[in-house]
């Protein structure tokens, strides 16, 4: 570690970083506070009392627009489907790319293209393709596919990073000890990369759970949560909107915390096993 004195640059950059973090969290804190607005309070400060009125309104009362519960459960299901598929498909593709194979170049560029083609184009394209083939778009078919075009490239890039840092000596050792390729994979490779796979899953889930543009034309007749939120922003003029923002944000955070905790537990367990 470098041990020279901290220059003025350090303090300037620290201030810059603190401002950046305030910029990231400031607005979110505002709506978090405003979601506890009193029953007669409006969309802006000042607070007109403090209450849970808007949370009750959101969770237990019928909304003017759509249904929050249905949209939430669809988004949840879609997120889980996307998460599992992303983990399995990117793991397989990541393994494939460890070796040279015919067409690996084009497949790589195709995956990158999937990342840089604007979302609305994917949405329009899948919507049109379903239309042309006479299929009805639905959240579990067309929207599912649309979400995969967004999560798989991220998953694959993470797998690249993982396998680039993976030491093949572990596999050689297993092979020398007589393990079959399958045993090597299950008992050696998989435990080592498991935390990264949870990371891929977490990424897949949250990207899908929050995806709006790619869902717009592909969700069919039932809304997912981001579409529902979008509908509410154009129609709803009460702090129930902020309550919705707070609830979904807290849910996202909970997912992240659970994922990070499981990664930490896995790491610790592995460290203990190696030590013991």
């Amino acid at each position, binding site marked *: 570690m470098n041990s020279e004195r901290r220059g003025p640059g350090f303090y300037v950059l620290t201030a810059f970083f603190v401002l950046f973090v305030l910029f990231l969290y400031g607005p*979110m804190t505002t709506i978090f506070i405003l979601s506890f607005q009193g029953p007669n309070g409006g969309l802006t400060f000042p607070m007109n009392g403090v209450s849970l009125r808007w949370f009750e309104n959101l969770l237990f009362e019928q909304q003017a627009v759509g249904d929050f519960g249905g949209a939430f459960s669809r988004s949840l299901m879609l997120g889980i489907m996307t998460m599992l598929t992303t983990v399995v498909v990117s793991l397989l593709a990541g393994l494939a790319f460890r070796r040279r194979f015919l067409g690996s170049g084009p497949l790589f560029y195709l995956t990158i293209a999937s990342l840089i083609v604007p979302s609305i*184009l994917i949405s329009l394209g899948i919507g049109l393709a379903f239309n042309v083939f006479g299929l009805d778009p639905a959240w579990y078919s067309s929207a599912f596919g649309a979400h995969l075009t967004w999560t798989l490239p991220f998953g694959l890039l993470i797998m690249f990073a993982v396998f*680039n840092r993976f030491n093949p000596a572990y596999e050689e050792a297993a092979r020398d000890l007589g393990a079959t390729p399958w045993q090597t994979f299950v008992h050696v490779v998989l435990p080592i990369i498991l935390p990264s796979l949870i990371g891929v899953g977490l990424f897949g889930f949250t990207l899908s759970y929050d995806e709006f543009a790619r869902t717009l034309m592909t969700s069919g007749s039932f809304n997912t949560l981001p579409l529902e939120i979008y509908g509410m922003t154009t129609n709803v003029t009460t702090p129930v909107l902020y309550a919705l*923002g707070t609830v979904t944000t807290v849910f996202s955070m909970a997912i992240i915390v659970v994922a990070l905790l499981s990664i930490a537990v896995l790491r610790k367990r592995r460290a203990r096993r190696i030590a013991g």
Partner: protein
Amino acid sequence: MTRSHLAPRLAPYLQATPLTLILAAFLVLPIATIVMVSFWDYDSIQIFPAFVFTNYEETISSPVTWSTYINTLKYTAIVWAVTLFVGFWVAYYLAFHIRSATAQMVLFLVCTIPFLTSNIIRMISWIPFLGRNGLLNQTMMNLGIIDKPLEFLLFSDFAVVLAMVHLYTLFMVTPIFNTLMRIDRALIEAARDAGASGWQILTNVIIPLAKPGIAIGSIFVVTLVMGDFITVRFMSGGQSASVGLMMANQIALLQYPAAAANAVILLILVLLMVGAILRIVNIRKEL
């Protein structure tokens, strides 16, 4: 014997098959459909197969299209410049000024977490802050800096750019942080021993080595801003246009062939910009 010789060579193909199939079905086929439909004809009720160039002619000859594209490019240029500046210094601070790996990871996560909540929620959260009766206007009026609310803060180009910077800076921070972390610290020691000033180290050593990260971040930001419609609609209050928004409006009016022609032009433009960035750096080499 044959099986054990064949299996390892077949394995990568089998492993790559699911990815290939998904991308073929949900990326290649839809884009081919867009190209096809962009030559179709339509009336107020339906679209029907044809081979006409009117969609392109109408798109290209309309002055509205041109001003929309120029507006989109303006957003792209401004947001790119701001996210690059902010993103580089944040990444630089995390990579070179934070000394313990744990602190680095924690601070990096602090930056990442807001990115994992809904974009739309993050956009609405600006409204109570920037609005006419918002926090910022109230505070400035109470402090006597201004005597009536500033109108340009919300529903303006300023708000669009601010929200985009808020949404997309992380896409710049992450790849730059990644490349900065991989710079061999011995190179910086060597430059210092050879008598280079901090500024010289930055411009002659660090920035050239950070180029791949800057390129990847730029590709992210450029493509996100070029295709964005939701931020533009929300934060401009419908007063500004972007290519994405123009397409979204055409879609809402069921003018699919017109939207498709627009999509093809947008795609070509985005690919040209990405191609230009890739000419400067070879990204595949850096992964």
